[in-house]
């Protein structure tokens, strides 16, 4: 068992919060080679070390904060991955976040941190290179994410620390709460904030000054330069450089027919001009903000003026946040929309899930399945009522009253609790709320939502090979804008990633190895999901609403039929070598080196 030659420090921090004991866990080269990092390594650690069917909010759950092989190197725009068993979906939960935290953690000399147990009182972890300590977070508990970050910098007398923090939502166990980096970047999906909160862990503060070991620096830097060039010269990003992902809001309405409107009832929002990029550009944005070494600069920060929220500083709207708090709720007031986005960031909530939850509640109220007075404490969640949305978000974040407890469960549990017709309108897959891309307008998104390992998520890839690609991007913990999206995968991936890994770690990767590894990682996540929740073909499907044709918009009349679903599933299972029910076969598992999963997964 050899230590990795480069790209990794070969060690993870293993923090037992119950006892406060901090140990080092070595990372073998074979594990790095086979599972890469990020999503893949997280799946491996959870599969191997988490007892089956652990309650996600119990102290036994593990929270793995992981970097990848390319973090902290010349590779552009690396991120941070957090893996855990999700309290929202009950299956594998992983979430990536941009910003400087991933690189900083790597520079501190650790490939990642594993948290186990539960601290007796609120704590945070401070890392300064090899100096690691758990510190009391009593004063920080209850503070919003932004204030926590500022207080940590003050307390540690270090303006260069980078932090990953949770807000009140995470502390209060909101099932879709997020972890926040740098005030506006959120590791949001799957409810990692609730896991962190359940462990009484308020924050991680890191300052790193080391360099990542690389076997052949010049060859690595050359390959990294190619990756950066490809991203820099990618014409598709020109709009995003200028207006962020908000450019897609108008585009989705007028062109692609994917703008989620009124809880996915339609994809046409006449007031899109009031919530889109043009409005933001004209009245709101002040600055471009970038992740480390990224040529795309997709974050736009601005300030609201002359409104009820005078002086509100916020980031966005991004495509997802703008759509889900705008058109999805039929809110055509830019200020309310931005306030909702900022509030979610400050409280540490997933804007996607929170937006879908509000939209779901609005539809239920409209259909008479939910009573405003009885069930929602008088919060008038009706289409277009921005004020009520803010009240609802506050109730969720602090778990106030009936409404807070009810809405904080996520759409799947809400539907189950109400029963009757209600689950039909819950826009989720495997418990994860879907993002703001209408799958009827662009069917590739259907693949991403229905078959993605973490449930209804838009970041899983739009065809079987696309999912392989995006899993690899998440395991190398790069940004998808850099690592490649479906239409430029030939250009950037996998050769450049192979080149970087070969030069840095001394491996012998070819695109074949790359795709095999991708299949291994997707299959391993599937095995975990089967072991924990018995996921199979019956779960790999979209809500029934998408069988109805789109009533209006540029893609009017398109639907996602049962046939489409079956075709998509069959193609997917065939690509990964799974059986008809979506269960990996013993042969596939052995071929991929996942022998240890056979006993759990394959029915005798």
């Amino acid at each position, binding site marked *: 068992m050899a230590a990795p030659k480069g790209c990794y420090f070969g060690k993870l921090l293993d923090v037992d919060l119950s006892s406060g004991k901090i140990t080092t866990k070595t990372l073998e080269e074979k594990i790095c080679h086979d599972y890469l990092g990020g999503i893949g390594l997280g799946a491996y650690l959870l599969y191997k070390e988490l007892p089956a069917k652990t309650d996600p909010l119990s102290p036994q759950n593990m929270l793995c904060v992981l970097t990848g092989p390319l973090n*902290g*190197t*010349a590779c552009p725009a690396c991120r941070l991955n957090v893996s855990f068993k999700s309290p929202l979906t009950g299956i594998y939960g992983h979430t990536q976040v941009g910003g*400087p935290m991933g690189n900083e953690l790597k*520079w501190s000399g650790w490939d990642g941190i594993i948290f186990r147990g539960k601290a007796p009182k609120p704590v945070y972890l401070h890392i300064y290179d090899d100096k690691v300590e758990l510190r009391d977070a009593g004063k920080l508990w209850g503070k*919003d994410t*932004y*204030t926590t*970050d*500022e207080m940590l910098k003050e307390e540690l007398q270090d*303006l*260069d620390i980078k932090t990953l923090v949770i807000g009140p939502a995470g502390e209060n166990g909101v099932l879709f709460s997020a972890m926040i980096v*740098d*005030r*506006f970047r959120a590791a949001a999906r799957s409810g990692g904030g609730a896991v962190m909160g359940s462990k009484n862990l308020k924050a991680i503060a890191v300052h*790193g*000054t*080391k*360099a*990542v070991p*690389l076997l052949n*620096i*010049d060859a690595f*830097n050359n390959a990294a330069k190619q990756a950066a060039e490809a991203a*820099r010269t990618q014409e598709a990003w*020109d709009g995003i*450089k*200028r207006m962020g992902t908000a450019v897609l809001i108008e585009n989705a309405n007028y062109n692609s027919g994917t703008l989620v409107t009124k809880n996915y009832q339609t994809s046409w929002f006449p007031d899109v001009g009031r919530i889109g990029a043009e409005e933001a550009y004209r009245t709101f944005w*002040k*600055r*471009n*903000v*970038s*992740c*480390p*070494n*990224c*040529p795309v*600069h997709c974050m736009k*920060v601005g*300030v609201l003026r002359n409104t009820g*929220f*005078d*002086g*509100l*500083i916020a980031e966005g709207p991004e495509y997802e946040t703008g759509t889900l708090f705008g058109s999805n709720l039929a809110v055509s007031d830019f200020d309310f929309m931005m306030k909702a986005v900022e509030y979610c960031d*400050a409280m540490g909530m997933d804007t996607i899930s929170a937006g879908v939850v509000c939209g779901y509640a609005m539809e239920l109220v409209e259909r008479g399945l939910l009573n405003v007075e009885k069930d929602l404490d008088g919060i008038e969640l009706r289409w277009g009522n921005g004020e009520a949305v803010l009240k609802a978000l506050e109730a969720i974040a602090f778990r106030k009253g009936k409404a807070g407890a009810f809405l904080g469960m996520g759409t799947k549990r809400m539907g189950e609790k109400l029963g009757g017709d209600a689950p039909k309108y819950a826009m989720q897959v495997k418990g994860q709320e879907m993002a703001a891309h209408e799958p009827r307008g662009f069917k590739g998104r259907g693949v991403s939502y229905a078959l993605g390992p973490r449930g209804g998520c838009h970041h899983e890839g739009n065809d079987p090979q696309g999912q392989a690609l995006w899993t690899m991007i998440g395991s190398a913990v790069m940004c998808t804008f850099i690592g490649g999206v479906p239409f430029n995968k030939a250009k950037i991936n996998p050769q450049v990633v192979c080149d970087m890994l070969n030069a840095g770690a001394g491996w012998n990767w070819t695109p074949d190895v790359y795709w095999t590894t991708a299949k291994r990682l997707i299959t391993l996540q599937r095995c975990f999901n089967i072991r924990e929740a018995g996921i199979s073909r019956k779960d790999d499907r979209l809500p029934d609403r998408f069988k109805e044709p789109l009533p209006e918009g540029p893609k009017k009349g398109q639907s996602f039929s049962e046939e489409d679903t079956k075709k998509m599933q069959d193609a997917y299972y065939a690509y990964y070598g799974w059986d008809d029910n979506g269960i990996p076969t013993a042969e596939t598992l052995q071929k991929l080196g996942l022998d240890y999963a056979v006993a759990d997964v394959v029915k005798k």
Partner: protein
Amino acid sequence: MSNEKEEQKDGLSRRLFLKRSVQVAAALPIAGAVAEAATPAPAPSAPTKPKMKYLFAERAACTGCRACEYACSQFHEKGVTRPALSRIHIRRYKGIVDVPNICWHCEDAPCIKSCPTTPKAIRKVKETNAIEFIDNKTCLGAKCNKCIEACPPKYLRRNPDTGWPLFCDLCGGDPECVKACNKMAEGELAPTLITKQSGGGVNLTYREVTADEAAESLIQNFYFPNNEGDRR
């Protein structure tokens, strides 16, 4: 400054001179190095004009991508990406403004004035305007804090391994950070870093402003936060 001039006029001590040739040699390919070391003094008849440069940061344009830090450490540390050793550093304040910390290459160089050792451990290179760390042996390292205190914008920081301060030598006249910044900002954005022939004292405009003060004024100018506290 007079000390500096005298030093240059009289020629350096033999020991220092040798040391410097070796340093120059280290930066050149082997063949060039031999030629350089063999030449007794830089030929005055060389056609190259003196490249007096300054570095300027248009702070309002910085997006905090830190490409300059990457480029700087890669240039100075043999390709290693290690922003902790970068001679330029970017700090994000409150998640909303990014302040580049650069050496303004002051004409009077208070850091050099304050250096207590003899001979001084830092010098200004007249041809390139670089502030150069010449002597690892004379520098007192972590025991001394003089140059760090003297620097008006409090730019200097230490190498975390050795304790020596990190000075900006303008990469010998063609700063890598500027190239990286221009590349990153190509197209839709404006570059932050500028390097030009020295003139008009523009490089001294912000030298009395520390990064913390700059951040405050940037936040004020961009966002005009009102009186209800920091977040609003």
